[in-house]
């Protein structure tokens, strides 16, 4: 299984519809400071069900919706879709392509979709149970985690170990 496509609209600095085809192996994302690289990482965490605003670097969840720029007004909703190519049948569904979508409106309404059918967050979490995916720790590794992992505070460390058990 691998991620085959990411579609972002209205999420953080992505004001226009952006489609990113993905392939197995190594994909590198580069660009100047502040251009939106980590926002892509946040979009993937978010569509997989991330609920903690601290992991998305925001105060409240609505802050992930495009907030406007010099020449554009702010948008009313954000939508991210992630296509998983289920070639090894890891996900317990009969499709080979599974599209997960998450939407959030400014009024706080949110929706999750699985292959264009509205589902609950619980259905998405059940889908990923025991596959190592999901918004939890070890599928996204950033520099700040290096200090947490090696720091004297064992709580952070245990969390990662328990995730894997």
């Amino acid at each position: 299984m691998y991620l085959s496509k990411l579609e972002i609209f209205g999420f953080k600095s992505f004001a226009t519809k952006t489609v990113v085809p993905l392939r197995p192996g190594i994909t590198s994302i580069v660009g100047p400071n502040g251009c939106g690289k980590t926002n892509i990482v946040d979009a993937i965490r978010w569509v997989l069900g991330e609920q903690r605003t601290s992991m998305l670097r925001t105060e409240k969840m609505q802050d992930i919706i495009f907030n406007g720029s010099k020449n554009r007004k702010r948008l009313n909703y954000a939508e991210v879709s992630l296509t998983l190519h289920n070639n090894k049948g890891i996900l317990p569904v009969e499709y080979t392509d599974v599209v997960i979508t998450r939407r959030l409106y400014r009024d706080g309404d949110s929706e999750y979709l699985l292959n264009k059918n509205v589902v609950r967050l619980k259905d998405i979490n059940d889908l990923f149970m025991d596959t190592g995916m999901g918004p939890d720790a070890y599928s996204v590794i950033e520099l700040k985690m290096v200090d947490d992992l090696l720091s004297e505070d064992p709580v952070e460390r245990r969390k990662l170990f328990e995730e894997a058990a």
Partner: protein
Amino acid sequence: ARIQFLEAFEKIRDNFHRTFSMYFEGGEADLSLQENEDPLEAKIEIYARPPGKRNQALKQLSGGEKALTAIALLFAIYLVKPSPFCILDEVDAPLDDANIKRFSTVLSKFAEDTQFIVVTHNKDTMKSAGTLYGVTMEEVGVSKIVSVNLN
């Protein structure tokens, strides 16, 4: 739950021995649970000795040695329940040129079974990628993605 945790812990420990010497090309590393404590509550101690150095506290490792040790440990955890994809956001920033090369080599080995998305500023890390995307803000405050040709 206790047996499950202990089994996973032993697997992570085995993996950590291997991944640490893959990244450091030598040296040794280990994990241990605090004595006389219930495994579900015990602290997890990390021991890491880069090649050629003496035993020392984790605190005394340098910035780059710590980053490489943490990456090796995260991979050791990951190998117990491999996720189909893994995202690395500028973890190569503290590494010197020699460690960047080692990091890329090990990454390419793991990439046979796992999809990696690597955010980086380092030109050597970019070279090991099969696909390269550039993110720009031609229009101020609005991100766009362009596909970059590696050559």
